């Protein structure tokens, strides 16, 4: 059930992508996202798509997992691409009443679809290959400059770590409680919207109770270990930039240059 959601799940491994520094991965992800949205013709879109596919293959995670993460948003992809087909300007190729399909509409649809798919694939790659602790650690480091603005970077990162840590736990708990209530004959599938929401009370109340209990226990456990916030805290695993990371940054810069050059030398399609 809830376990089938592939989005945002860490899969341990030893691939090149797994071994990269989490901070570098985050920065390169941002670079990729910018590039995905700054590809205005088929050549540059092709380059960035190729780069995304290369990253996926390097991550050594089965393609099935990536397809699963796409499954979640397939409806969004379909709706946006269909809407975009009818949104183009220029001479219609086919026309039904007020709806017309134009060449620019088809181009738009292709661009939107490819962009969303690339976006999901490359972000899934980050969460598949980076453990939640590394991820928040990296985010904490990257946000450090914000401390000047008196933003509590460490606290935000700690909250994110805890939230991420408890997502699978709470999902598992939901599964268990749902199964227990189903075993008592609870009917959660039939009936209208209101009835379904009402039927969730026997699941939600125990879930809240247990979430509060866990939060309380965690707070006590943290205090017992003298946790007092981020000041003066050192790390067991210090993030380090390695040769591998430098190489990955260089490759990304090459892709970046390629996309920019193609954008300049080939005509924009949208």
């Amino acid at each position, binding site marked *: 059930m809830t*376990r089938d959601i*592939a989005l945002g799940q860490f*899969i341990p491994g030893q691939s090149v992508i797994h071994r990269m520094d989490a901070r570098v991965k985050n920065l390169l992800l941002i670079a990729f996202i910018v590039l995905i949205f700054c590809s205005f013709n088929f050549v540059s879109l092709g380059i960035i798509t190729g780069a995304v596919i290369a990253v996926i293959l390097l991550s050594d*995670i*089965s393609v*099935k*997992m990536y397809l*699963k993460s796409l499954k979640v948003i397939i409806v969004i992809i379909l709706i946006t691409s269909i809407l975009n087909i009818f949104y183009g300007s220029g001479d219609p190729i086919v026309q039904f009443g007020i709806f017309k399909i134009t060449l620019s509409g088809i181009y738009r649809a292709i661009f939107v679809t490819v962009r969303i798919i690339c976006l999901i694939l490359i972000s899934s790659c980050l969460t598949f290959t980076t453990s939640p602790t590394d991820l928040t650690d990296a985010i904490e480091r990257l946000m450090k400059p914000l401390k000047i603005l008196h933003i509590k970077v460490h606290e935000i990162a700690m909250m994110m770590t805890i939230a991420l840590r408890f997502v699978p736990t709470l999902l598992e*708990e939901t599964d*268990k*409680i749902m*199964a*227990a*209530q*189903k*075993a*008592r*004959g*609870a*009917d959660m599938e039939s009936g209208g919207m209101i009835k379904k929401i009402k039927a969730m*009370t*026997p699941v939600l*109340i*125990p879930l809240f*109770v*247990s979430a509060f209990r866990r939060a309380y226990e965690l707070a006590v456990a943290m205090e017992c270990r003298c946790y007092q916030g981020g000041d003066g805290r050192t790390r067991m695993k210090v993030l380090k930039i390695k040769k591998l990371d430098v190489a990955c940054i260089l490759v990304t810069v090459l892709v970046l240059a390629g996309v920019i050059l193609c954008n300049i030398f080939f005509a924009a399609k949208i």
Partner: protein
Amino acid sequence: MSIIEVKNLSFTYGIGTPFEKKAVDDVSLCVNEGEVIGLIGHTGSGKSTFVQMLNGLIKPTSGQVLLEGKDIWEKSKEIRKICFKVGMVFQYPEYQLFDETVYKDISFGPRNKGLSEEEIDLTVRKAAKFVGLSDRLLNKSPFDLSGGEKRRAAIAGVIAMDPDVLVLDEPTAGLDPKGREVLLAQIMGYHKERKNTIFFVSHSMEDISRIADRVMVMNKGRLEMLDTPKNIFAQVEKIESMGLRVPQITKIMMTLRERGYDITDGVLTVEQAFSEIINLLEKEGKI
């Protein structure tokens, strides 16, 4: 007559993901009406997964569960009704309590079953009596009960549906020795009166040897042994190779036997051992 028949039952979690895991592997058995089946196995051997297939909470990857001769998945739309026939008490069932009062919580199952108000009242009070919850406790919030009381309230919630088959997944886990003793006695008392079929999953070999007519031993998803407690616990080496142990008293009595004392084989409970030793001493003229 066999009430439950399990045929080549298998279940795999997360098919098609890197986390694929065969939890139950080709299990077959027949269970007679009124029998108490003890289920033991190492953590992760697939006990919980197996019992959840008995009442249709999870659908087998392959194989069948026949309840009174009918495949429970034959009419998959009516799978919910199986829950009323095969009652399931999960591990740590106290986490499922949700209603304002204990009484209302216990009546959740019977109400879903579609009983009338009078029938609900009757069955709730009866179930509460089986597990020894007083009327005073019935009007309290379930969140104000002690750990042991919560556990018993949750079990009453399943007993109140009056199932023909009752599955208990580690019902005594995490209770203090006294609480375990009381709960076990209550379950045995309930079985004596209602005479229904019981599946009892436990890590306590002592509990199993006291309550079970037959014992299933699971290892890595497979059903390794199925026999009476006496025959199962006679095979100490095999049991221990699966990371389990035999009841301590059985082991003590076996050692005495090996040292040449005249003791019958397969002593399972302390009471039995007591009378054996008294007999022995009398025979030797020591008392």
